[in-house]
């Protein structure tokens, strides 16, 4: 029975928000810039493919999350547990079973399992054993962005909650040892879509943007010229390679935003390369209006993550901002994810929900944070007394997240694009930090993919990539009767997640000199030295496999 606290009516969002992207069948007109590794597209082309990553922390009650079917086609009636909110999308889901992400326990390192889970998750690389514990390689979102994004723009990495540079709250890394922290203010994200000197953000709900006026265009160009000459002066200086790249990055941004040249958003009137559907009307239809943005954005500080346990909400402004951020804020971020795709501003989009917060919204009133609850004890250690009713506590958070993922999927599936929906062009991945939050295990990860990435991925199926029965894990093993039995982990399901990433890279169109990608990451075991021992995508996950 779905808890009343979770009120996600995905069907309603389908009906009210069916958007038809206008213009030539809503198709993106051919972009003048084609990254050398991006598939060529014609003028009446299929929509670009996108990767969307929805990331949650602290594992889940795996027994209740996994459908019973481990390998075979899925029906809506198979999604009865935690994933019930996704039942109506079953025919567009792919549940890969048996993947394990990387960590280094077992090779003598004692880095916190959460640091390893986050740092290695999208990098498949070891971490630096220093104060920051950042990984030694860039993350998948950046790798893919360089290959498929217009102008090789950096991926769009968003989070709810407070901005953070802590390893437990970062999964994106623009290069080795360099964190790419998420943006957390919806207004900042929206502004990036409507920028251009003088172009205002919407001032009244639902009103279309002021039509481009000549002076704004000229002003925008003047800004670009001035900044460009400042950067050119810098380019003439003797500087390190890294600094030269920084200058070039900025120059590239200027070029990208120049009127009529592969720009994003509506920075120029009559720009022929901006998708027609990228308009304030579309934004409005998606619910991205001035008042909605304000209501979804923080008024000031947001309560940051709590790592030492404790910290029940006090009703402070920071706590209120946290609640807003997780609810209206996260929903607005989803709208902005959709808008970024519609505007083709980004094809690699990450939305993260941090794990060290005390749930105090949507009918859930916890007094300790999600991380502590996931330990079963309500504290930062996993031994000791079970928190009373802890399995129910975890369950309702798990369902809340399933509801949010369903909301995202429903939103994308409600937008018609070409002959299908926006969802169809994507691989929208629910990627978890851990399997079970108390065991901190990374095998048998509860992963869900929605969308076929333009027909590449299998749909309506669970696929066991390991080949032998895996089982649903043992999350329900402990605290059923109030006693902390401890072992909520499991052992099966150890195919390296690198292979899933390779499959996804190929699905969204990454190629290496025309050939499919065959490997990703630094390691696919617990030891970096052998490198990638099991390359290749997983054919069984593809529509032809």
């Amino acid at each position, binding site marked *: 029975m779905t808890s009343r606290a979770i009120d996600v009516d995905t069907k309603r969002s389908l009906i009210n928000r069916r958007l038809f992207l206008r213009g030539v069948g809503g198709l993106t007109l051919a972009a003048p810039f084609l990254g050398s590794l991006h598939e060529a597209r014609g003028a009446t082309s299929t929509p670009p493919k996108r990767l969307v990553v929805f990331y949650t922390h602290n594992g889940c009650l795996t027994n209740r999350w996994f459908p019973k079917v481990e390998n075979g086609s899925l029906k809506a009636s198979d999604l009865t547990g935690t994933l019930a909110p996704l039942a109506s999308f079953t025919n567009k889901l792919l549940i890969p079973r048996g993947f394990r992400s990387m960590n280094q326990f077992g090779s003598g390192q*004692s880095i916190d399992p959460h640091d390893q889970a986050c740092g290695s998750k999208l990098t498949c690389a070891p971490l630096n054993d220093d104060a920051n514990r950042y990984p030694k390689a860039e993350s998948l979102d950046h790798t893919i962005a360089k290959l498929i994004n217009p102008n090789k723009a950096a991926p*769009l990495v968003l989070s709810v909650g407070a901005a953070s540079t802590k390893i437990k709250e970062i999964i994106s890394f623009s290069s080795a040892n360099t964190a790419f922290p998420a943006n957390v203010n919806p207004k900042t994200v929206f*502004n990036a879509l409507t920028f251009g000197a003088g172009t205002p953000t919407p001032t009244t709900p639902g009103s279309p943007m002021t039509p481009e006026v000549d002076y704004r265009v000229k*002003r925008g160009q003047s800004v670009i010229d001035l900044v460009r000459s400042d950067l050119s002066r810098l380019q003439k200086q003797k500087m390190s390679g890294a600094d030269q790249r920084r200058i070039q990055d900025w120059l590239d941004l200027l070029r990208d935003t120049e009127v009529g040249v592969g720009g994003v958003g509506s920075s120029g009137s009559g720009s022929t390369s901006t998708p027609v559907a990228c308009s304030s009307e579309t934004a409005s239809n998606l619910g991205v209006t001035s008042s909605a943005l304000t209501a979804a954005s923080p008024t000031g500080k947001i*309560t940051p993550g709590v790592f030492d346990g404790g*910290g029940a909400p006090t009703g402070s402004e920071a706590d209120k901002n946290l609640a807003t951020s997780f609810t209206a804020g996260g929903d607005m971020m989803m709208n902005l994810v959709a808008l970024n795709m519609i505007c083709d501003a980004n094809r690699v989009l990450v939305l993260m929900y941090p794990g060290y917060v005390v749930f105090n919204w949507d009918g859930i009133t916890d007094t300790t944070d999600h991380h502590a609850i996931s330990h079963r004890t309500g504290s930062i250690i996993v031994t000791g007394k079970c928190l009373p009713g802890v399995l129910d506590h975890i369950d309702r958070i798990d369902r809340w997240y399933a509801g949010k993922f369903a909301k995202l999927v429903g939103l994308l599936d409600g937008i018609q694009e070409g002959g299908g929906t926006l969802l169809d062009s994507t691989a929208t991945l629910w990627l978890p930090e851990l399997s079970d939050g108390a065991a901190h295990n990374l095998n048998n990860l509860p992963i869900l993919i929605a969308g076929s990435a333009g027909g590449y991925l299998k749909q309506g199926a669970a696929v066991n990539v390991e080949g032998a029965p895996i089982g649903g894990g043992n999350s329900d093993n402990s605290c059923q009767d109030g006693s902390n039995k401890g072992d909520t982990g499991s052992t099966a399901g150890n195919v390296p997640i690198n292979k899933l990433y390779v499959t996804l890279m190929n699905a969204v169109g990454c190629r290496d000199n025309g050939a499919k990608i065959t490997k990703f990451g630094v390691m696919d075991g617990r030891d970096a030295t052998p490198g990638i021992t099991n390359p290749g995508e997983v054919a069984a996950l593809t529509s032809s496999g």
Partner: protein
Amino acid sequence: MAAAALIAGCTGSIGDPSSESAGAGGGGAIAPSNLGGRTGTSGSSATGSGGTTAGRGPTSAGGSVAGGTNCTPSVPPTSQIPRLTNDEYDRTVRDLLGVTGLTAQNGAAPSSLLATDQAGGLTNVGWSAYKTVAEDIAAQVIADPSLKGKFISCDPGVGTCLHDTVVSFGRKAFRRPLSKDEVAGFDAIIAKGSEITPKGAPSEVAELLLSMFLVSPSFLQREELIDVSDSAGHLVLSSYEVAARLAYMLWGSTPDETLNRAADDQQLKTSEQILQQARRMLGDPKARDRVAAFHRSYMLMGTNTRWDNTNHDSLLFPAFKRDLVGALQKETEMFFDNITFGKRGTFEDLLLSSVAFVSSATAPLYGLDPAKFTANLSETNLDANHPGFLTRLGFLNAYSGYDAASPILRGAFITKQVLGVPIGAPPPGASDARLPDASADLNTNRKRYDALTSGAQCAGCHKSFINPPGFALESFNAVGSFQTTERDTGARIDTSADVTVDPAEAAIHVTGPAELMAAIARSHSAKAQYASKWVSYATGRDSDPGDACTVEQLAAKMMASGYTLLELITDLSQTPAFRIRTVEP
């Protein structure tokens, strides 16, 4: 801190001298005796190692000689064009233009709309954010008579006002004079004014100019470009670059008029000239804020940290209330401020002073009579059992369990944060171990923790490093009140311990908190750690092996008696590393 090398999490076997931890990827523990002395004899070439109290020779950049104060200071190569951090952006805009909140965003700080700080190249989101915020600020400044004068002080429609403003404001915004070409570029904007503003009105052109300054790379990046070498072949910063470094180091913000004039007059070339400015700047409230922020970070204070989430059983400790938590933090902040500025004290004073700030509400926790205090925290002196910040209520309360003190929390803080010994993280599962119940044998908190951490896997870190300082602080219960007997059992509390303050030297026997603080105060480790944290904070970079020599020189000064904290902070500007730079590969 580079926690890598020395004690890698105390896993596995200890006392294995042949297993170098070798920085990243290293397994196994290193016996404490292998940590290498201050003379850097261990000679490990582990990447990323060193740079902590052991004074091991830095392995990168500048070829310093390990240990001692005869080392050659080097400068870690960093970017020559670092962008202002969001905090620096807010303070710079506050000091240049008087803007502290965006009226267009209900008073939110300007940086709340900027992209999150990141060290990579500027992104699309970052660039659009700068433009949006620049426009908001410019509109706000022009519209507000109390702010407008900070940008333009003449009538924009009259004569050469706009051109003159470009020159005068540009000097401040770019933290250097504009070149002829740059002025010409802005003059061209003025000339085009009617085409690129709604109505061509002079005030609109003025607003546009301001927003353009605020999105210029020369404003947003703290450039260090001058290409002049000294006789030793180091690249020497220009006066303007020195001024900017001083201002961002001591104020976290842009230079003021006086500093700008000193730069214009080439008065920032010698150490003495720089020292004069540094001293002046330390007297400004902006420096006081910066020092306060440093001490908060040194103590790991902040929203949602242990300090904020302090909570204790008020049935067991009726004098403790949750609403005192703010006051407990404030007392420690006032302590650091008072010792640094009020008393012009030394590092040792931080560890030894009996100054405290007590109110009638917090007095009972100190065992003092509330009637002798007011509602506000006011200065007083405590007895000989209360030397320094580690015996103040804030730290003791934050680093305790709910109903009992925690020698591990307190000891680990002292070991890692104060002494800079890199003990790393506990091995997997360690923090889950349950404290043994009290019994006839285990009749004090100390004995229970001792039993908990006696195993082979634990003793390496706990016996020598973590537990001893924690045991010495068992004189203070969970809420920081002095105690001599265990509450539940009446057993006498033993606060003697053998504390390792310097891994290269023998343990020091202390009988309680006073002797513990005296040992820490005297130690080289604690001073080097404090200096290292300052170097890192002041330069805005993680502690780097290339800074090891600078840290060592400062630590050596701190070992001399009477060397004040203010002198330490000004001396950050006196190291040769302050005036030179190196190039990143």
